[in-house]
């Protein structure tokens, strides 16, 4: 169970990174919520004309205008369009052009590596999203690095003191695979004294800015001293770029699944660089039923396949499959 080691976001960090990105009215309400509740918060949701909501690891709460949390929406503060507009102005530093590429993906990353998801009207241009306008809802997902999230999994990944297995992590959504990858990166990069494992050069290709949580190119999470991050780079390009530019020992990337990802993975294997990656799924059979991924498993490129679930808390290791030995 990971929750026990969770590195909580201190209240001063919360204020600097989250509070100051909200509109003044919402900011004043959130300020009134007790520190304990805020530190446990996972999401803050704003939706025009709907109650302000705060999610923690237990449930979603309606937030009243005095900062009181309740399951009853009656006394909740109703979010105004102005709240969303102002928050967006602040988050983007009043410079839409600086976040335009992120906006196309439906989220922006703010200082601290927190992700703000946005919805509104999508404007298309030649079959591609050109911009989201009239944004009417935002979800501020508070990112918390969990130091030690990968403690249980490291022994499966390490081959000996100096090398590791190509590993695929299969996980349903919300089971902590990104958190785990982040901690794997950190541990591989620092090295693990208990096992006599020496630190490795790690290359993270962070297409969705989730693993390292980069803000202005600088990782906001501790991903270790030997880790290089290509932020917001499509995985297929990023993996080959990384091999050429930074000579990593291991490449870490999240949520593979497209055809071009797979061919990039083959290049990584052929270059003799180790790979640790994850994929959405519930079991090995589930992956085998998907044509693109099936080939990958059939080729036995991954020596270890780790399956996660939520059965004993977020990040439970359900099963470890070995094909390398």
């Amino acid at each position, binding site marked *: 169970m990971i929750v026990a080691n969770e590195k909580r976001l201190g209240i001063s960090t919360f204020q600097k990174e989250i509070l100051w990105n909200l509109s003044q009215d919402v900011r004043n309400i959130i300020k009134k919520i007790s520190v304990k509740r805020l530190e446990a918060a996972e999401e803050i949701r704003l939706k025009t004309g709907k109650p302000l909501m705060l999610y923690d690891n237990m449930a979603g709460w309606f937030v009243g205008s005095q900062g009181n949390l309740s399951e009853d929406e009656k006394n909740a503060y109703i979010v105004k369009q102005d709240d969303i507009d102002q928050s967006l*102005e602040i988050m983007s530093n009043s*410079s839409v*052009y*600086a976040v*335009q590429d992120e906006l196309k993906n439906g989220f922006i990353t703010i200082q601290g590596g927190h992700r703000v998801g946005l919805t509104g009207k999508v404007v298309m241009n030649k079959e591609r999203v050109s911009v989201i306008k009239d944004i009417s809802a935002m979800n501020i997902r508070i990112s918390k690095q969990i130091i030690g999230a990968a403690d249980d999994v490291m022994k499966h990944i390490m081959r000996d003191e100096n090398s590791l297995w190509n590993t695929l992590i299969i996980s349903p959504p919300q089971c902590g695979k990104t958190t785990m990858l982040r901690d794997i990166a950190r541990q591989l990069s620092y090295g693990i004294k208990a096992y006599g494992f020496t630190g490795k050069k790690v290359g993270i290709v962070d297409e969705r800015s989730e693993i390292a949580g980069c803000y202005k190119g600088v990782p906001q999470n501790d991903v270790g001293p030997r880790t290089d991050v290509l932020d917001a780079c499509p995985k297929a390009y990023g993996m080959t770029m990384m091999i050429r530019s930074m000579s990593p020992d291991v490449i870490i990337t999240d949520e593979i699944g497209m055809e071009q990802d797979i061919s990039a993975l083959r290049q990584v294997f052929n270059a003799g660089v180790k790979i640790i990656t994850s994929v959405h799924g519930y079991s090995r059979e589930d992956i085998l039923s998907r044509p693109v991924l099936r080939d990958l498993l059939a080729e036995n490129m991954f020596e270890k396949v780790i399956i996660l679930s939520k059965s004993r808390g977020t990040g439970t290791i359900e099963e470890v499959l070995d094909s390398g030995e």
Partner: protein
Amino acid sequence: MGLKLLGCVLVIGASTMMGYLVAEKYSKRPAELRTLQAALQMLELEIAFSVNALPEAFERIAQSLPENIGMLFAHSSELLKERTGIPAKKAWRLALKKAYDHLHLEKQDREILITFGNSLGCSDKDNQIKNIHLACSKLAMEEKKAEVLRQKNEKMYKSLGVLAGILIALLFV
């Protein structure tokens, strides 16, 4: 007699200074319009290549400008950094209001800057750059006109000041 002489000197001095002050308006305006264009070109680089957000871009631009025009950018930057959620357009307008008294601009110049500010920050890169180009070309046109006015008026007001001073002095004597 001594007192009269002193009076004459004072009158001529004051009148000359007034002439120079009026002339200054004509002589400084083209220079300021030029600096503004240079500043907007810097902003274009900040947006197109560095992709810096406005508060940061403005701060950097302000540092390389003379104080009066730099103030326009510095103050906008400060307002945006306060994180009150005001749009760039509003911050720019407030800064312009503050800086305007220190500048020698005409009403039409201010209109150009206000129109420019209205699209500030709120669109994608290409449109931001178009907006900058548009403002720059308008400012260049005003600069040309201002230059003609300067050549016509600067010398005239300077000599007018001196001559009017002498005239008044003579009338008093």
